[in-house]
Every structure is written in structure tokens, then in C-alpha cells.
């Protein structure tokens, strides 16, 4: 077994070997290992290459803050993920992992040439060059930059996994299950409140997992932890969630969490989602996310083998891995000393503890001497060596702020600690404010913007004892605020490892600081020099520094780099941190898959599909569908070998010659009922309604208050106090909302109720000379003769035995009826009419034929022939505006200067001089096609079709002053040719409406 695995340590299952691959090579780890701990156990520190300079890098941390050790992971075909943190990914048999951003191999990466050009690729260098010659940017420079940039590669195939989501309401949400979080959960849990404790790790415990030597409440830390977690599991009002990261903290205590469900499993359970996005609404939130260790900033502090001391301690105590056998420790904080002691006790020969401070507590130095560790206080580190792994470091004594003569010390790892930063990302999402505290040398929570509590290291309290006490108090406070009562138990702690330290900028060095490669943002390769350059170039806001250098913009979201960047920027600006300010933390806390956000809403569930009761019949009969608003509608019914045009021509012929049947169920239907219904209609629509008789219909036109046509539809009067209003398919919801708005807020005095009955009725339209012949035998309770039931009538009768609302209306110019029956009877009625219709060669038609037939009659489609800038007069529909009316929605806008002005675009017909040419819908119209660009455009073609009936093309268009141009020639300039058109009226077929009167 490898020299780096320590069987006596760690929480992993030493007797359970697990093998996986890294860059094709089989690696053996143990159950419970992460990819990083397993690689380290095998002596492999080199795990990746940096973004800009392609420098060799190893894991610097042991958690989700890791900036270097990003890998690609593959489970199986389609299950590949880039940029996964090796320090978080748990290993399982068969896991395939690969390094990123290197070519040809991780060990020999030609990209590393950039490192030689280090001085050239300074902060913002790309803003200063690549400008000449211009054409080279797109063709040469940018492609080069892009190839060099990027970390991993994108997946290339559809994701076979699915993702789930979940809403949850609870009294208290606790984020982070370290000592503070657990103490908070225990206190809050006992109150009976509904408590949820979430932790991003695979197991709960946080820092306790890395501090087995501590005694809590009279027993060893790990035994205490197990007992307490059992206690929590025993409370049915408490829920524990691991592998669950709180990614964002939103308005009114809504916290988004992403739970990883399968990425650690050997085999996938059938149908199990990969991740679940939780949206938790909590009465109180407790943030116990602990603190993050800061790297020290010195020349070549990024070699594989250089690692945070706390992380090295974690690798030893959680994973049973010595990250080095001969490590050196360099620190400005006590905590790293304890790491050194743990490693030494586990068999490492710690070469030296280098402390920047001139004195430390004697207890620490005594412990070090006891272990035979060389102690060098008031010393600094000025460099490291080793290509793919650290070999030695330069240590210099400090004379004040100057570095003395260097001594080289060999080592196989360098453990550093620059102190700790409270993890307050989520707190910052809420716009809670932070204040700089000089004795902790950290930003601490100040003003809260949400009902939340922060406890433990998040408040700058180091050590497990303080965390437990503070967490308990937070638990009590939260429970009390949520209306429960409880008390916090005391958990006495022995051999606790509190500690203090100082916070530094770049370490003093004996070299030219201008040339030092002292890294701050490891992933983005931002060095102290870059920060100082940015400031010297006038980037005085910390946001400018961040953006100019990209410090803190890497995938660790600045967890490693923000504080060091801030300290150095502040120094360069000669200001205290407080005046420089922080950059904003933005969600998510750690990168989160798109899939988790989309949840169920993918594939057929991407958006709701509304279907009519007759949809199945259309599908069974080979209809082609088109999406209209949320509906899918039958577009046309192609026979074998027919394309859209052939099918539509046939459907048009059949309808005009005999009989067509059409599913109009998607039309919006609104029942307007009440004593004031007619008054309401008068106020809403442009038309007058008072005189409309019961069982009569009228075409209604609805404007927005801005005077433009918003919707239209046929409206039938069922009784004195009840109207059956129809709207366009797409407009139904908008119209009802608008009507409710006026009714509820402007005219609450009107006794009117509005009800959408779109869903209640299936609507079947019959059009054609044989429409009555087919329908009549089915109708009971209504004389169908032209006299008794003329055009624009409505009747409540039965059709085929079903209760029906029967309209005699026509959107085709043919004799037409629309039968409304309760939705569940729709299919049955359709089948009835279909069978009986065979004698008339009844032809089902779709929306396209409907559009052609209505265009031949010059009927508009709102949204196609009008576009939200068209008034009734523009559309040639002044006839629909009640002349005597003193007010209706939109009326006042019609007299605004530019609406009343001459020369507006008006709806007209267009006939191409060459009758075979069908204009493009959307094609533009000009008077002189020979004019230079930009041309003066008079309008555009709104509808254009081949009219089978007329044996030629027809078109509708809006044209400036169109109604004064009847008979004029205009032109539609198309690529390569100009199409000459004649301006005509809008009715091309049966202008005297003879066919309606059959």
C-alpha cells in the first residue's frame, strides 16, 4: 500500500477498496474517498492545469472551494460532466475521470508556453493589443484566445438523467451541519419546530470530522457526533439532508438547495432523479457555514503539493491520507500548527513550521519541539521548486518587513494558512451588510435583511466549543422567533483548538516583487502583481479590480481569492479594507447544473400543451399540427403524397364546393352574465350592444386603451342578461384578464360576472353549401330555415341529442354553422357529423385552409393583419365602431393627433399583375422599386395565399393611404425581381355575400 495512506486514521472504509480511472490509469482508493483523497493517497498531487498559464496544479483544498483540481467525470454514455471538483466527487467502482485544459497530456502541456510569456499576459493585456489588423480579430486572435480559454469540454449528447424539484415549508432551515449547525438543530429540534438541517458534504459534522482529538461532553468528538446525529434522526420534526448545497438565498427566506442524489452511487436506482432542486420557505434561517481558510500569497505558491493546512488535516483525519511525508508548514495563524502536529503524530516528518509572526504562544512551540519539529518564527517563504510537485522551498528570516538570506529546505508538501474567512456568501445574497472587524481580520455580518441568524465561525468564533455554544443560542433564538420555546444544552469541550492569527498581503520577499508569481486566484491565474497593476492603471473600485484582473471570477466564486485580493488592492490604494469594500457574492454558492434548475420541465413537459376534445381524432387521421399559444391545432390534413399546398388547395375546394368540417374549440369563450351585462359590453367593445336582440350575434371589436385593435370575435346574446363572447385563440386569457380588470377596479358597481367557458365547450364549425343539409337532421328545438335561423343567429337547442349552443356564422363566406356542445361530447358529435357527412364528401380542414378561406373574403386575423399598431379605421372597420357611443375602451386614443392624421397605413387588397406569383407574407411595398436604399416603404403584405377558388394569388396588406390608391400599381421588391401589384379592395370572393344566404 502507498506510503501516504494511514490505516490508523480516517473515516473511510479501509477494508473496502474501490478502483476508478484517472486519465485512463486505474487508481485504487477506499470506500468513502473522494477522487482527490484517493489520488493523494497514491502520491499524486498533479490534478489539473491552470486557466491562463497552464501551470501544473494539485488540490489546494479538500472541499467545494477547490479552484485547481477540476476534472471531467463519466459514469456512462451521456453521463459526462466537466469541471467537477475532485475534492467533492466521491469515488465508486467504474467511475472514469480525466484531467482538463491540457494537451497533449497533463504532464506535458504545450499550453504551458504561456507561462513563459507570464510578463506579457498581465492583467487586461488583451484590451491593449490584438487590434491590428482589424480583420485579424475575428479570424486569428479571437479563435486563438478562445481555444486557449475554457476549462473542460461541454457534454455533446442529450442528458439521459432526469431531475426533480420540491417545495418545502418549514419553521427553521439550518444551512451547514458543523458543530454550530448541529447544536442549533438540537436546540431547535427539541422545541418541536419543523427543522431542516442541510449540509453539502457526504456526511455531517463539518470541522468535527477533522478534529477527532477533541473531547465533547465527556466523549470523543466522533462518538459525540454519532450520538447527536442519532438523536436528531430520532426527532420526526427534524429532517437531515446531506449532499445538499444551499445555492441561493432569495426574498422572504426562500432558499434554493440542490441535492445530489446519484452521483456517488455505484448503480443507479430505476427512475431515480440525479438531482433535486429544493425551494424551501423557512420562517427562520440559521446560517452555520463555517469559515474558509485563506492561502498565503508568495512566489510560486501554486505548485502541486502546496495546500491549505486545514485541508491537509482533513485529508489525514477524514480520509487517512498524508498529503506529504516530509511537509513544511508556513502560516500566520495558530490553526496550521495543529495540522502539523496531527501529521507528525501520524508519522510525517514535518521539516519545519515557518510562522510569519515574531512570536507564538509557548504552548505551540513546546508542542512542536516535543515532536522534534524545527520552529522558525518571524520567517517568510520566498519561493518553491519542483516541476510537477514541490521539491523544496526558500525560507528567509524576516528583518522587519525585509527578507534576509534564503535557506532552501527540501520537502514533498507545503501546508499553508493565511487565517480564516467566515463564509457569508448566502448572507450576502440577502443584501445583509458586512462590517470589517480588525481583531478577527475578517468581514462579519452586520445588518440583516431577512429573518436569519448566523452562528459559529460565520461570526468569527474559532474553535468547536464556541461554535457549539453559539449554535445552540442561535437555535433557541430562531425557535423563539418562530413561536416555539426551547433551551440550549451546554456541551463542555476539552483540547479545543481555538487559535488566533494575523492577516497579510503578499509575503515579504527578497526578489523583485514586480516579477513574482504570487497567486491569488489560482484558477484564473491572477497574481498580486496583477492586482497592483490594475490599481496603478486607475482601477480604483474593487469591482474594477475584479473585472480587470478577473480575480474572484473563477468557478470557486472567489472563495479562495476575494480576501487576499481585497487586502492587496487596499494596500495598493493606501486605504483600509473598509473603504475599499467587497465585491458582491452572487448565487449560486457552488456551480449548479442547468438540469437541476429545469427539473421536470424538459422534453414534453417543457411547456403545457393544451389539446381539444377532437385532437385525438385529428392525430388518428394524420393531421399536421401547429402550436398556437399553448394549444396545438390541426394545421392541415395531408393525404398520402400531399404537401401543405396540395392539401390546403383540396381542403379549400371541398369546402367551397360542398362541405368542410373544422375544430374551432380553441377559440376563447367568455360568458358575460348579469343585469348590467349589456352596459359592460357597451363599455368594453367598440360596437353598440343595447339593440342586439336575444338569439342574435354580432362581430365584436375590442381595443386596448391605446386605441389599437386587441382582439375580435363573434358575440351572441343568449338572453337579456347573458352574452356568449368568443375571442381569438391566443387572446382568450389576455381578454378575460382585461375585462376582469375593468370590471373589478373601474366599474365595481356593475352587476356582472365573467366566466371562461373555453374549456366547457367543444366547437365544431361546418362550412359549405351543404352545411345545413348535414346539420338539419341532427338539430332538435330549432327551425333551421334561413328565415327562422338567419345568418348571425344563435340558438340553444340540441344537436345529435347533445345540449348545444348553435351559431349560424361564417368565417369562410360560405353558409356556416358553429356547434358548441359540452366538451366530452365533442368527439362523439364530430364522429356523428363525420359519418353522416360522407354523403357530402365532408372534408376536415385545418387552420391553414381556414386562413385562406377567410382571406378570400377579406376577414382579418388579429395579430397577422393587425399588429398592435392598427386602429379600427386603419383596418377599414369603422363600421364596427358605434357612432353614437360617447365612450368605450380605447375611444379617446383614436383622436390623438398622429392617430387621426392622414397617411396612416390602411388595410387593402393586393393582386399581383402576374396572377401566379404568390407574395411573401411580410414582404415590403414601395412605389418606386428603383430608388436607392434605404427605400421608402409604404407598408407590407400581411396575408398572402394561393387562392384555389379564384385560380390566382390574393394578398392583404397595410399600405400608407391605401384606400386612396385603389387601382394603383405598387411594387414589392424581391431579391432579383420587383413584383408589380395592383391595390384593390379586401374582398376577393363573393362580395355580395350571396353564398351566405343559401
Amino acid at each position, binding site marked *: 500500500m502507498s506510503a501516504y495512506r494511514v490505516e490508523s486514521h480516517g473515516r473511510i472504509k479501509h477494508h473496502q477498496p474501490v478502483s476508478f480511472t484517472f486519465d485512463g490509469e486505474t487508481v485504487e482508493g477506499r470506500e468513502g474517498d473522494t477522487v482527490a483523497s484517493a489520488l493523494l493517497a497514491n502520491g499524486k498531487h498533479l490534478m489539473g492545469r491552470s486557466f491562463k498559464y497552464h501551470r501544473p496544479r494539485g488540490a489546494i483544498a479538500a472541499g467545494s472551494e477547490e479552484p485547481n483540481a477540476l476534472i471531467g467525470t463519466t459514469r456512462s454514455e451521456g453521463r459526462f460532466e466537466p469541471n467537477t471538483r475532485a475534492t467533492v466527487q466521491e469515488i465508486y467502482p467504474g467511475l472514469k475521470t480525466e484531467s482538463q485544459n491540457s494537451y497533449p497530456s497533463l504532464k506535458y502541456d504545450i499550453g504551458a508556453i504561456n507561462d513563459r510569456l507570464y510578463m506579457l499576459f498581465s492583467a487586461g493585456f488583451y484590451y491593449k493589443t490584438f487590434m491590428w489588423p482589424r480583420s485579424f480579430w475575428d479570424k486569428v486572435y479571437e479563435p486563438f484566445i478562445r481555444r486557449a480559454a475554457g476549462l473542460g469540454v461541454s457534454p455533446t449528447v442529450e442528458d439521459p438523467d432526469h431531475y*426533480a424539484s420540491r417545495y418545502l415549508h418549514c419553521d427553521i432551515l439550518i444551512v451547514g451541519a458543523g458543530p454550530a449547525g448541529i447544536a442549533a438543530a438540537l436546540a431547535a429540534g427539541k422545541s418541536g419546530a419543523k427543522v431542516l438541517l442541510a449540509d453539502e458534504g457526504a456526511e455531517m459534522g463539518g470541522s468535527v470530522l477533522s478534529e477527532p482529538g477533541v473531547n465533547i461532553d465527556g466523549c470523543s468528538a466522533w462518538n459525540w457526533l454519532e450520538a447527536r446525529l442519532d438523536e436528531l434522526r430520532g426527532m420526526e420534526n427534524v429532517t437531515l439532508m446531506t449532499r445538499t448545497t444551499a445555492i441561493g438565498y432569495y426574498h422572504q427566506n426562500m432558499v434554493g438547495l440542490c441535492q445530489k442524489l446519484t452521483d456517488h452511487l455505484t448503480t443507479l436506482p430505476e*427512475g431515480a432523479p440525479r438531482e433535486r432542486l429544493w425551494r424551501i420557505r423557512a420562517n427562520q434561517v440559521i446560517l452555520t457555514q463555517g469559515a474558509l481558510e485563506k492561502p498565503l500569497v508568495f512566489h510560486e505558491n501554486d505548485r502541486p503539493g502546496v495546500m491549505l493546512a486545514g485541508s491537509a488535516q482533513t485529508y489525514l483525519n477524514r480520509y487517512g491520507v498524508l498529503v506529504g511525508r516530509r511537509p513544511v508548514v508556513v502560516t500566520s495563524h495558530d490553526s496550521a500548527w495543529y495540522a502539523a502536529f496531527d501529521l507528525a503524530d501520524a508519522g510525517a516528518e514535518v521539516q519545519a513550521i515557518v510562522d510569519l509572526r515574531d512570536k507564538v504562544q509557548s504552548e505551540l512551540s513546546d508542542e512542536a519541539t516535543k515532536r522534534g519539529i524545527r520552529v522558525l518564527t518571524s520567517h517568510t517563504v520566498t519561493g518553491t521548486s519542483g516541476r510537477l510537485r514541490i521539491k523544496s522551498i526558500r525560507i528567509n528570516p524576516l528583518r522587519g518587513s525585509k527578507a534576509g538570506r534564503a535557506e532552501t529546505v527540501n520537502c514533498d508538501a507545503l501546508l499553508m494558512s493565511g487565517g480564516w474567512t467566515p463564509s457569508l456568501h448566502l448572507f450576502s445574497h440577502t443584501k445583509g451588510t458586512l462590517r470589517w472587524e480588525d481583531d478577527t481580520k475578517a468581514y462579519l455580518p452586520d445588518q440583516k435583511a431577512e429573518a436569519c441568524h448566523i452562528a459559529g465561525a460565520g461570526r468569527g468564533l474559532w474553535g468547536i466549543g464556541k461554535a457549539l455554544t453559539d449554535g445552540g443560542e442561535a437555535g433557541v433564538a430562531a425557535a423563539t422567533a418562530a413561536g416555539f420555546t426551547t433551551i440550549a444544552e451546554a456541551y463542555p469541550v476539552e483540547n479545543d483548538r481555538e487559535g488566533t492569527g494575523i492577516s497579510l498581503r503578499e509575503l515579504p520577499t527578497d526578489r523583485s516583487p514586480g516579477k513574482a508569481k504570487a497567486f491569488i486566484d489560482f484558477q484564473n491565474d491572477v497574481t498580486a502583481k496583477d492586482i497592483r497593476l490594475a490599481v496603478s492603471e486607475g482601477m480604483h473600485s474593487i469591482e474594477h479590480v475584479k473585472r480587470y484582473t478577473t480575480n474572484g471570477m473563477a468557478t470557486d466564486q472567489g472563495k479562495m481569492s476575494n480576501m487576499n485580493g481585497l487586502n492587496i488592492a487596499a494596500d495598493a490604494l493606501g486605504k483600509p479594507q473598509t473603504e475599499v469594500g467587497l465585491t458582491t457574492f452572487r448565487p449560486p454558492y457552488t456551480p449548479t447544473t442547468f438540469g437541476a434548475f429545469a427539473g421536470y420541465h424538459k422534453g414534453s413537459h417543457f411547456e403545457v400543451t393544451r389539446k381539444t376534445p377532437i385532437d385525438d381524432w385529428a392525430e388518428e387521421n394524420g393531421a399536421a399540427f401547429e402550436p398556437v399559444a399553448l394549444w396545438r391545432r390541426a394545421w392541415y390534413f395531408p393525404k398520402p403524397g400531399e404537401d401543405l399546398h396540395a392539401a390546403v388547395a383540396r381542403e379549400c375546394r371541398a369546402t367551397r364546393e360542398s362541405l368542410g368540417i373544422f375544430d374551432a374549440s380553441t377559440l376563447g369563450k367568455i360568458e358575460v352574465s348579469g343585469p348590467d351585462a349589456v352596459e359592460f359590453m357597451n363599455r368594453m367593445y367598440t360596437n353598440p350592444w343595447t339593440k342586439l336582440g336575444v338569439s342574435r350575434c354580432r362581430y365584436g371589436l375590442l381595443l386596448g386603451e391605446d386605441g389599437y385593435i386587441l382582439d375580435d370575435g363573434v358575440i351572441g346574446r343568449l338572453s337579456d342578461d347573458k352574452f356568449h363572447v368568443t375571442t381569438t385563440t391566443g387572446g382568450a386569457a389576455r381578454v378575460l384578464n382585461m375585462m376582469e380588470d375593468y370590471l373589478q377596479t373601474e366599474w365595481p358597481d356593475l352587476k356582472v360576472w365573467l366566466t371562461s367557458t373555453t*374549456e*366547457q365547450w367543444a366547437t365544431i364549425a361546418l362550412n359549405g353549401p351543404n352545411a345545413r343539409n348535414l346539420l338539419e337532421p341532427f338539430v332538435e328545438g330549432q327551425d333551421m330555415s334561413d328565415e327562422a335561423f338567419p345568418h348571425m343567429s344563435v340558438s340553444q337547442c340540441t344537436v*345529435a*341529442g347533445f345540449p348545444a349552443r348553435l351559431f349560424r356564422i361564417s368565417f369562410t363566406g360560405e353558409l356556416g354553422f358553429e356547434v358548441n356542445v359540452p366538451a*366530452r361530447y365533442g368527439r362523439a358529435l364530430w364522429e356523428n357529423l363525420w359519418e353522416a357527412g360522407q354523403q357530402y364528401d365532408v372534408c376536415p380542414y385545418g387552420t391553414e385552409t381556414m386562413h385562406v378561406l377567410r382571406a378570400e373574403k377579406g376577414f382579418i386575423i388579429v395579430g397577422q393583419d393587425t399588429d398592435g399598431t392598427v386602429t379600427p379605421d386603419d383596418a377599414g372597420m369603422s363600421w364596427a365602431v358605434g357612432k353614437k357611443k360617447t365612450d368605450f375602451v380605447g375611444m379617446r386614443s383614436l383622436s390623438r393627433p398622429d392617430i387621426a392624421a392622414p397617411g396612416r397605413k390602411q388595410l387593402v387588397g393586393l393582386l399581383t399583375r402576374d396572377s401566379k406569383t404568390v407574395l411573401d407574407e411580410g414582404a415590403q411595398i414601395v412605389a418606386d422599386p428603383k430608388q436607392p436604399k434605404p427605400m421608402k416603404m409604404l407598408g407590407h403584405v400581411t396575408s398572402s395565399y394561393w387562392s384555389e377558388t379564384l385560380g390566382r394569388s390574393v394578398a392583404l396588406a397595410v399600405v400608407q393611404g391605401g384606400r386612396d390608391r385603389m387601382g394603383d400599381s405598387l411594387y414589392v421588391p424581391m431579391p432579383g425581381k420587383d413584383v408589380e401589384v395592383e391595390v384593390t379592395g379586401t374582398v376577393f370572393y363573393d362580395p355580395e355575400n350571396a353564398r351566405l344566404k343559401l
Partner: protein
Amino acid sequence: MADAIEKVSPLHALAEPGRFGDTSGEPGVGLSERLCDSLVQVQAWPDSISALKKAVKSVTGASIKPGNAVATKGDVVLMSTGPGRWLVEDETDDLEVRLRKAIGADIGAVTALTHARTVVSISGERCEWVLASGIALDFSADAFPVGTAKLSHHHEIGLTIHRTGDQAFDLYVVTSMVRSFWGWIARASAEVGYTVS
């Protein structure tokens, strides 16, 4: 003639009986579809609410309860869907006619919605879990007691949700969207395993 032809359920093609999703262990929920015989909306004028309540009582024998409490009597269900507005359900086919007789224009408006809604029933240990995976309400029994109804939505689909038991809900779904809704609830139930009856 009508009797000769069956009503066609929008879910006829989808909701096939059987056991689906995770088949290890007991099914977490059971799903089923119900077509109302009569579902009628009654709406009162601000000054005629008590008159309307009287009328409803006279027709159904059940009294409208305050707030979102659902009144049930035999096969009658009365649910509030907003100020002055209620849904009335029973198993007759002439409920609308009878209500219309009792509720004149002076009292309010009566609108049949029998075919406009399709009821999806969900029951079983995990029904709260399944519903909460796509509907933003708090389904815990204290926040959503048995015998109350709430309005909500899933993904643009309007819902009236009646908690009929500790582990049972009736969801009144807009008919044209019920196929999409079924697609979702089946997917969400797959994780816990479900039966369709």
C-alpha cells in the same frame, strides 16, 4: 341518441390501470381520474350572497361553509373559489338546471363547468411529497387541513385542490391541460412508485 354515445374522457388514452415507476416496495401513491356528473359555478352579487347561499341549500341540501372549508353532504361538494363564488358538484345530471331555477339574475350567475374540469385523485402515503414536488403550496396537514380546498397551479395549469382525507386529494384540472398535468404527476410519482386505478 346521446345515451348511445359515451362521454369521452380526455385521459382515456393516458390513464391506463396498473403499477408504474419504482416497483420496489409498496407504491407511494395511487392516481385515478374522475369525471364529474355535474360541476356548476354559482356567483352572487355583493348584496345577494345570503340569498344565494339559501338557494344553494334549497337545491343541494348542503350549506356553504365559511372560508376555504368544503361542505360535503352525500354526493354534494361545495367549494369556495373566491369572494362570492362557489363550485357546486353532485352526481345528478340536472344540477345546473335546478340551480338556475333557484338563482335568478337578481341573485347571481350560474355557469356549468362540468366538462371544463377533470378531477385527478391522488392518495397514499407519499401524496404530499408528490404534490409538493410541483405545486408551491404547503401541503402539511396543519397548513392544509382535511376538508378544505385551495386554488393553485402547476406550470400554467390552474388547479382547485380539495383535501378529501389525511392522504387523499382531489385536483380539479382545466380539461384541455389535464393530459399535460397527468404527464407531470405520473413522472413525479414514478420516483415513489404509483398505481393507476
